[in-house]
C-alpha cells in the first residue's frame, strides 16, 4: 500500500466521524494556542529582562559613606580606595566626586554648574561622546564634556529657568566657559573668597542614552577637580567642600560571581555598598519560576488534548475492530494498519496545531496592550504586554502537536493490530 493511499484512507475515516474529529481537533487547538501564548508571554518577559540586564553593570559595586553609622565614621578617601583595591577579586576602583561652579558663557550665566569628576583614564566608562572627543588627560587646561541637557543651565536671567527651556541657541562644542568654584552662592556671599577663574574647554557633547531624555551630565577629570579645590582651599572650606574626599567609589569585581563576597567585605568595613547583582539574582530566580509556571499551564493544556486524541483513537479502534480484521485477512501488513491509525492521529495533531497557532496569533493581536504597564501572573510588563511569536515558536508548536498526536495514537494503533483477525471480522 502506498503512503498516499494510506493518507487518503485516514482522511476518509476522519471525515466519516466529522463531529468527533472536530471536537478532538478543538481540544488540540486550545492546547496548542495555550502553549504558544504562554511561551510567547514568557519570551516577552525574558526579552524585557535581558534588556534590563544589558543596561546593568553587573560587576559594579557602588560604595557610599554610611551616614547613619555615627559610631564608626568611615570616609571615602584615598585610604578607602587603597583598602578596596586590596580586597580579593577586585579588578579596579574608581573614585568620583561632584564639584559645583558658577559659570559664564558669552551673555549667559549658570548659577550652579555641576560636574562629575572621575579619573580621566576611566572616563570612557561613564561618558560616550556624540560629537567631539573625550578629555585629553595630558592637557594642563581645564577640559569638560557635557550633555545637551546641561545647556539649559545657562540663561540670560533667572526667569528663563522653566521646564521647557532647552538652553541658548549657540554652539557649545569647542566653546570656552568661564568657571568659578562654588556656584552663585560663593559669588554673592561676600564672606566667601572668590575662586580663581578657570576657562573650561568643551571637548565633546555626550550621547543621549534615550532619545526622549537629554542627559545633563557634565564630566571633568578628577585630577583637575582636585587641583581646583587645592588651589582654592579657602573657598572650598568656606563652602564646606571636602577637599580630599569622594562622593562615591565604584568598585569593579573581576567576575559577577565574586560581587557578593566583595560587597560583604566592604560592608564589614562600615561602608554602605550596593550592587545591581543583588536584586538581579533575586529577579532571575523569580523569572525562572514564572517561566516554569507558564510552561506548566501550557503543558497541562497539551496533556489534556493528548488524552482527547488517545480517547478518540481508542473509540475509533473499538468501532472499527471489524474493519481492522478485514484488512488483516485481506493482507494489509500490521505496520500499514498501525501507520493508518498513526496518520489519523497525526492529522488531528497537525490540523489542531496549525489552527492553534492561528488562534494564538489572533489572540496576541487582539489582547496586546500598548504602552500601559501590565501585571500578569506576577510578571510585570513595563511597557505593555506584547506577544513575541517568532516563526520557530509556531513551527515547534505544530511539531509538538503532531508529536502529541502520534504519541497519543501509538498505543491505540498497537492494540488495533493485536486483535485476532477472524474474531474481529465476526465482531
Amino acid at each position, binding site marked *: *500500500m502506498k503512503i498516499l493511499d494510506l493518507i487518503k484512507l485516514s482522511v476518509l475515516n476522519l471525515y466519516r466521524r466529522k463531529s468527533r474529529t472536530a471536537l478532538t481537533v478543538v481540544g488540540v487547538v486550545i492546547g496548542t494556542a495555550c502553549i504558544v501564548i504562554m511561551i510567547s508571554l514568557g519570551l516577552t518577559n525574558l526579552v524585557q529582562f535581558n534588556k534590563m540586564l544589558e543596561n546593568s553593570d553587573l560587576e559594579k559595586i557602588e560604595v557610599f559613606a554610611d551616614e547613619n553609622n555615627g559610631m564608626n565614621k568611615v570616609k571615602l578617601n584615598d585610604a578607602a580606595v587603597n583598602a578596596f583595591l586590596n580586597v580579593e577579586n577586585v579588578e579596579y576602583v574608581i573614585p568620583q566626586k561632584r564639584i559645583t561652579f558658577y559659570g559664564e558663557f558669552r551673555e549667559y550665566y549658570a548659577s550652579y554648574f555641576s560636574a562629575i569628576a572621575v579619573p580621566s583614564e576611566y572616563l570612557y566608562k561613564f561618558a560616550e561622546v556624540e560629537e567631539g572627543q573625550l578629555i585629553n588627560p595630558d592637557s594642563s587646561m581645564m577640559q569638560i564634556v557635557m550633555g545637551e541637557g546641561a545647556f539649559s543651565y545657562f540663561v540670560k536671567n533667572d526667569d528663563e529657568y522653566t521646564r521647557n527651556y532647552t538652553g541658548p541657541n549657540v554652539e557649545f562644542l569647542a566653546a570656552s566657559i568661564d568657571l568659578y568654584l562654588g556656584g552663585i552662592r560663593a559669588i554673592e556671599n561676600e564672606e566667601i573668597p572668590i575662586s580663581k577663574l578657570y576657562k573650561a574647554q568643551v571637548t565633546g557633547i555626550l550621547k543621549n542614552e534615550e532619545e526622549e531624555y537629554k542627559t545633563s551630565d557634565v564630566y571633568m577629570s578628577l585630577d583637575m577637580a582636585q587641583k581646583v579645590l587645592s588651589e582654592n582651599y579657602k573657598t572650598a572650606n568656606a563652602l564646606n567642600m571636602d577637599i580630599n574626599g569622594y562622593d562615591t567609589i565604584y568598585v569593579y569585581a573581576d567576575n559577577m560571581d565574586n560581587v557578593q563576597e566583595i560587597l560583604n567585605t566592604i560592608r564589614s568595613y562600615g561602608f554602605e555598598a550596593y550592587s545591581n547583582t543583588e536584586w538581579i539574582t533575586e529577579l532571575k530566580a523569580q523569572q525562572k519560576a514564572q517561566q516554569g509556571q507558564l510552561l506548566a499551564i501550557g503543558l497541562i493544556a497539551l496533556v489534556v488534548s493528548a488524552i482527547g486524541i488517545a480517547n478518540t483513537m481508542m473509540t475509533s479502534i473499538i468501532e472499527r475492530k471489524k474493519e481492522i480484521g*478485514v484488512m488483516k485477512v485481506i493482507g494489509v501488513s500490521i505496520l500499514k494498519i498501525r501507520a493508518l491509525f498513526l496518520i489519523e492521529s497525526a492529522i488531528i495533531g497537525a490540523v489542531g496545531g496549525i489552527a492553534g497557532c492561528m488562534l494564538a496569533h489572533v489572540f496576541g493581536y487582539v489582547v496586546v496592550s500598548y504602552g500601559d504597564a501590565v501585571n500578569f501572573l506576577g510578571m510585570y510588563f513595563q511597557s505593555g504586554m506584547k506577544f513575541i511569536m517568532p516563526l520557530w515558536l509556531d513551527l515547534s508548536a505544530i511539531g509538538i502537536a503532531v508529536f502529541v498526536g502520534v504519541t497519543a495514537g501509538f498505543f491505540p494503533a498497537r492494540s488495533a493490530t493485536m486483535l*485476532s483477525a477472524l474474531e474481529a471480522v465476526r465482531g
Partner: protein
Amino acid sequence: MIENKHEPLIIARNVTKIYKTDKTRLKALANVHLDVMQGEFAAIVGTSGSGKSTLLSLLAGLEKPSAGRIMIGGRGIHRLNEEQLVDFRLKNTGFVFQSFNLFEVLTAQENVAFPLMAQGVGKAERMERAKLILNEYGLGRHLHHKPNELSGGEQQRVSIARAIIAEPKIIFADEPTGNLDSQTADIIIKSLADINKQKGTTILMVTHDMERVKYTDRIIKIADGMISEQEA
C-alpha cells in the same frame, strides 16, 4: 504453486487446535487430515461449535495450529511468521465473509480495488480493473455507491468481486450466504461456482446451508473437531 488439478493444493496433516483459557482447555480440532485439490470447490459443513470455522481459519493462515502441518502449494504455512502470512494471504488468497465486511468509507469500486491498493497497484489501473469486474457482475450502476446504499446481495457480490480481483489461487468463504434470502443465496453460490469453473480457482467454503452444497465438488462434514465424513 503447482497448477495441476489432480495435485492437492492444500494438505493438512495431524492438524490439532487447542484453545487455552485460564481454567479450561478446549480441543477445537483433533488430528485432522485433509487434502484439497487444485481447482476444487469444497464445502465444510457441520453444526455450530463443530470446529468448521477453526479449520477454515487454520487453512487460511489466520491462526496457527497447536500441532500438525499445513502445506499450501508446497509451502508450510504453519511455519510462517505473521508478516509472511500477511504477504502470503495478500498474494494467494481471497476472502468472502458472512456479513460482507465492506469498508464503509469507500465506494463499491474502491472496495473492490482495495486488495490491489494493498499490493501497491497504481490508482488508475486498479480502479479500471475494479470497474470491469463490477460491470461483469451487473453492478456497473453502483460504482460510486457506498456499501450502505446497496442491498445485501449487491454487497455480497461486491465482496466476491473484491475477493477475486487480485486473481488469488484460493478463495476462502465463511458462510457467504448466511445473511441472504434464498434467491440471493442461490445467485451468490452460482457465481462462486462460475469462478471455480471459469478461472479454476480453488474454493473452500464453510456453510450450514445444506440446500446449496449441491453446487460444490465435495462436502467435508465435521463434528466434534474431527472429519466425520466426506462425500463427492
